[in-house]
């Protein structure tokens, strides 16, 4: 714990916020005052508590159907974080596996993976995501899969390079002479040795995935009603900017603070865990 004492204030605050958001996501069912879909037609477009007409029944006000904004934000945090977390894990697994494949089989497999990495890196991912949604139609499974594909090339590039170096090391060759399978060499030995680089990349990838998810949901092409996400709350709320700004602004602020906190933590973690990656 002594090591934490020297942390910059911004990193400490970010940590607190991230922990709070994780708690909110996990405990959503217990802490949300209402169900996110509960409609209260007598209290439509109620303003937040600090404005005239606000009520403690709905601390952050209600939307056009009288749904509690606070409860919707709590469930949206759960959706957005869960989708981003799932996406980040899928991306890390996908990129790591492909990086290992390239290093293990070399030759045309490596060429193919490298080409796919360049291809992926050359195109803005949002455009590809939109194309996939247009061609394949929207479904939650596809959407999560798209979040998973996002950023795979960065894992693949890092893992490929590190695996090439690691497999030439004595311990990897020793394991092969002992009869270990490739899966054992790569996943039980090389993976733990390069895990810190992967974890750093995950913390940097996570807030970007949150941004992608919220952006697509904001455009109406991500999480679909009746499910709620921070992005689609802002998307629906923008129609009420004139009359009920809080519907859009409250989730927007949560998005901003959350991605900012994750970025600050990720930057710090990168410098802390892996000085060699700095500046790249």
């Amino acid at each position, binding site marked *: 714990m002594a090591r934490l004492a020297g942390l910059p204030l911004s990193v400490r605050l970010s940590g607190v916020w991230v922990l709070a958001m994780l708690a909110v996501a996990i405990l959503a069912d217990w802490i949300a005052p209402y169900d996110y879909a509960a409609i209260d037609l007598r209290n439509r477009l109620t303003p937040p508590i600090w404005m005239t007409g606000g009520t403690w029944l709905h601390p952050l006000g209600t939307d056009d159907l009288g749904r509690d904004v606070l409860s919707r934000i709590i469930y949206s945090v759960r959706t957005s974080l869960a989708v981003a977390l799932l996406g980040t894990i899928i991306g890390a697994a996908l990129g790591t596996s492909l990086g290992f494949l390239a290093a293990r089989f070399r030759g045309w497999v490596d060429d193919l993976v490298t080409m796919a990495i360049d291809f992926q890196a050359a195109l803005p991912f949002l455009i590809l995501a939109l194309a996939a949604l247009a061609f394949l139609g929207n479904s939650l499974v596809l959407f999560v899969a798209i979040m998973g594909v996002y950023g795979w090339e960065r894992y693949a590039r890092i893992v490929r390079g590190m695996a090439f170096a690691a497999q030439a090391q*004595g*311990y990897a*060759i*020793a*394991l092969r*002479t002992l009869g*270990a399978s490739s899966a054992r060499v790569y996943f039980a*030995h090389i993976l733990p*040795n390069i895990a810190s680089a992967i974890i750093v990349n995950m913390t940097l990838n996570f807030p970007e995935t949150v941004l992608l998810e919220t952006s697509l949901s904001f455009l109406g092409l991500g999480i679909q009603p009746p499910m709620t996400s921070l992005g689609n709350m802002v998307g629906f709320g923008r129609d009420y900017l004139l009359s009920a700004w809080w519907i859009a602004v409250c989730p927007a602020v949560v998005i901003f603070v959350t991605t900012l906190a994750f970025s600050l933590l990720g930057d710090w973690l990168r410098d802390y865990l892996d000085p060699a990656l700095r500046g790249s």
Partner: protein
Amino acid sequence: MTEVGLLELRGLRCRFASRGIPLIAPGTTVHAVDGVDLTLAPGEILGLVGESGCGKSTLAKALMGLGDYQAETMRFAGQDIRAPLDRRPRDLLRRIQYVFQDPLDALDPRRSVLYQVAEPLLIHGLASGAEREARARAALRDVNLGADIEVKFPHQLSGGQRQRVVIARALVLAPEVLICDEPVSALDVSIQAQVVNLLRDLRDRRGLTILFISHDLGLVRHLCDRVAVMYLGRICETGPIEPLFERPRHPYTQALVAAIPPPHPRLRKPLKRLIGEPPRPGSPPPGCRFHPRCPLCEAACRTEPPALLPIVGAQHDGAQQSVACHVARRGEALPC
């Protein structure tokens, strides 16, 4: 004499291909090992000596199925083992074990000693759970390591301890052959003796067959039963330890033996020095590979590579001394 060895090697060639630039510089092929025959009898410790770069490590790796090699014969207990590592039967990977030069490099920095010593049993599915750990502990005891190091990581051990962990990891599979590639050259002299004595003890107690690769003739003389001297990809002399060290025939062996520091300074003889630079393996000289540095060099040596042939009368307890040298052969009564 046609003794059937546990490990038999005929006509081994190992290539190193340097990739050139297309259309500008063609790639070149270098034979780091160029036609080597070796036989290891069961329970024997064979020393393989030579300067660094002579191909002895490459030879050892080829025996493990690593690298780019071809051989007329490569047999283990009568079974053809020419296949590369990835295509060898699993049982073979258990029966022949390899001990690396640098034990720190050969161990995974992020796994505990006990895990790494037990892992070969897991890989080969030889024991489960508690049984596995018990056998790993026994292997560690066999190499004289205490229980306190089980939970440690490689970087927390001394060099000698690490090398003994590597040996324990090989022993846990109860192999028949141990190929030790300069196992002690990274260690302090005092610790070298411990490891060497351990190897001899293992042979005496378990009948382990060992190929001991080293550039240190003193160690080889202390440990081995037989020795093969390698120069630039070829064997130039081979024979039982004592006779060979007493009476080396090949000028290269003579120079090596003369260079061993004597146990006592008063016994020091004038040093027969090797003249000239060790040639680059990239462009081996024609004829006898040693001829540019050889004090006895003759015309035939420059053109005609000498064969490794037995020396008549130089037979000791069933082991034959052989030499590959035109000049030395003339001095002896040789069958040819």
